C-alpha cells in the first residue's frame, strides 16, 4: 500500500532538490554586484515604507479563527461524503443538524458584522 505513495516521495524529493540546487547554483554562478536598492526588501516594486515588524490588527485574528472553525466543519464533510449512500437519509439528517447548528453561528457572525473590515 505504501508503494502507492512512491510518486509523492519522488515529487517531494524533486522539489527539495530543485530548491537546494537553485540556491547553490545561483550562489556559485551568479554575479554579485550589491547596491543599496538591490539589498532593500522587495515590496512589489514600490519603495519600502516603514518597518516590516508592524503589529497586525486584531481583525486578522478574528478572520483566522473563524476560518479554522469552518475548516473543521469542512473536514467532517469528507467522511460523510464517502459514506453518504450507505448512511442514507439518516446520515443526511445528522449532517443537516450539524450544519444547521453551525449555520446559526454563521448568521450570528454575519449579523454581528464580524466579517466586515471595519
Amino acid at each position, binding site marked *: 500500500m505504501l508503494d502507492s505513495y512512491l510518486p509523492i516521495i519522488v515529487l517531494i524529493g524533486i522539489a527539495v532538490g530543485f530548491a537546494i540546487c537553485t540556491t547553490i547554483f545561483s550562489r556559485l554562478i551568479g554575479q554579485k554586484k550589491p547596491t543599496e536598492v538591490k539589498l532593500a526588501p522587495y515590496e512589489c516594486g514600490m519603495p519600502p515604507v516603514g518597518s516590516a515588524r508592524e503589529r497586525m490588527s486584531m481583525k486578522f485574528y478574528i478572520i483566522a479563527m473563524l476560518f479554522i472553525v469552518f475548516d473543521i466543519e469542512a473536514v467532517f464533510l469528507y467522511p460523510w461524503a464517502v*459514506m453518504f449512500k*450507505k*448512511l*442514507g*437519509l*439518516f*446520515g443526511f439528517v*445528522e449532517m443537516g443538524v450539524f450544519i444547521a*447548528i453551525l449555520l*446559526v453561528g454563521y*448568521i*450570528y457572525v454575519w*449579523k*454581528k458584522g464580524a466579517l466586515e473590515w471595519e
Partner: protein
Amino acid sequence: MDNLMQIAMQNVNYGSIMPSLVLCIFGMALLLINVFLPRGKTTPASWIALIGLVVTAVFAARGWGDPQFGFAGHVALDKFASFSNIIFLFSAGLTILMSDEYLQREGYPIGEYYPLILFATAGAMWMASGTDMMTIFLGLEVLSISLYILAGMFRGQLRSNEAGLKYFLLGAFSTGFLVYGIALIYGVSGTTNVADIGMYLKSHPAMLGNPMTIAGMLLISVGFLFKIGAAPFHMWAPDVYQGAPTPITAFMSAGPKAAALVAFVRILILGLDGLQGDWTSLLWVLAVLTMTVGNIIAINQTNIKRMLAYSSISHAGYALVGLVAANQIGVSGILFYMLAYTFMNLGAFAVLVLAGKKGEENLTLEGFAGFGFKRPFLGVAMSIFLISLMGIPTTAGFAGKFYIFAGAIKAGYIWLAVLGVLNSAVSLYYYLRVMVYMYFKEPAEDYGWVTLHAGAVISIIISVVGVFYLGLIPGKVMEMARMALFF
C-alpha cells in the same frame, strides 16, 4: 455495512439527551434573537433564558424514572444524571436571576452572556450523563470554553482579562492531561466506554498493575482535579474567581464544579473500579491538602470575593472526602453537598452582587463595616449563608458535611473525618470575621447605593429557602440522592 442505517436509527434515543437538547435550542434561539433585534433595544434575554431553564427542568425531572440509554452507549439519563442536572439548573437559574442588573451596572450588557450560560449548563449535563469518555470530554470542553469566555467577558477591566486568559491557558493545559489519560486508558482497554473499561479491567486483572493503566488514571485525575479546583491544582482559582464577573464566579464555583465531580465519580467508580486502592490513597492526601490549603489561605484575605474563592477550594476538599469514602453514603453525600453548596454559595454571591459598587472595589472586609444594621435584609441573608458555609446545625452546610463525614467514618477513614471537622473549625474564623464586621463595626457609610433589585432578591430568597429546607428536613433529598446512585 449495508444495514448501517438501521443500526444508526436504533442507537438514537432522544429521550436520553432531552434536557441538554432543550437548553441548546434555547441558547441558539437567544443568540439569533440577540443579533436580529435592533441595536439599543433591551431584550428580555434573561427571562427567555429562565423560561428555557424551567422547560429543561421539566424534562430533567422526567428523567427521574427508569434510566434512558441512547446513542450507542454514549449517554445514560439515569437518576444520578437527573439529580446532577437539577444542581446545574439551580446554579444556572440563580446566576441568571442575579445577572441582569449587574451587567447594566458594570456597563457590559452583552447579549451573548445568557446563551453562553445555557451552553455551559448543557455541557455540564453531557458530563453528568455521559457514559463514554468522548462524551464526557466534549461536554467538559463545551462547559470550559463557555466559562473562559464568560470569565474574560468584561474586556475593559484588566482583572477580567487576566481571569479569562489565566483560566484559558491553565484549563487548556489540564484538558491536555485529561485527553492523554483517556488515550492511555483506551490503549489499555481498547474502548472509550466507561462501563466497558470497567468490565475489561475486571476480566484482565493483570492489566491493573500495568504502568499505562496507572498513568492513565493519574492523568485523568489531574484533568478533573484541576476543574474541581483541588490542591495542588488550585492555583488558578483565586485570580479567576476574583477577576471574573461576580455572577459568573458564583456559577463557576457551583455548577461546573459539581459537573466535574460527578463525571469524576462515574469514571472512577464505574470505569476504574479495579484501581480503587490507588485512587483512594491519592485522593485521601489531596482531600486533606485541599481542605487545609483553602482554609489557611482564606484566613488572610481581606477581599471577600477572593476569600470566598479560597473557601470554595476548601469546600471542594470536603466533597473529595466523600469520594475517598466511595461508599453509598459518601457519594450520595457529594450529591447532597453540591446541591447545598449551590444554595449557600450562590446566595452569598447574590448579596455581593447587590452590595458592590461599579468596579467592585468596595467588596472588602472594611467595606462591610456596619452593613448588617444599615441593610438588615441583606445582612441577615448574608449571615445565614455564612453560617451555612461554616456548617452549623439547622443549615444545609451542616447536613451535607454530616453525610460526607459519616460516609468517611463508615468506610473506616476516621482520621480523614477528624481532619475535615478540624478544618471546618478553622473556617469558622474567617466566616465569622465577616459577620463581626457587618454587625460590630461602626458603619463608615450608609450604603445608599444598594438597591434591592427584584432578580437578585428572588435568588437570595430561593437560596435561603434552600439552605433551611436542606438543613432542617434533609432526609427526603438525601433519600433521593441515595436512590440516584448507580452502584
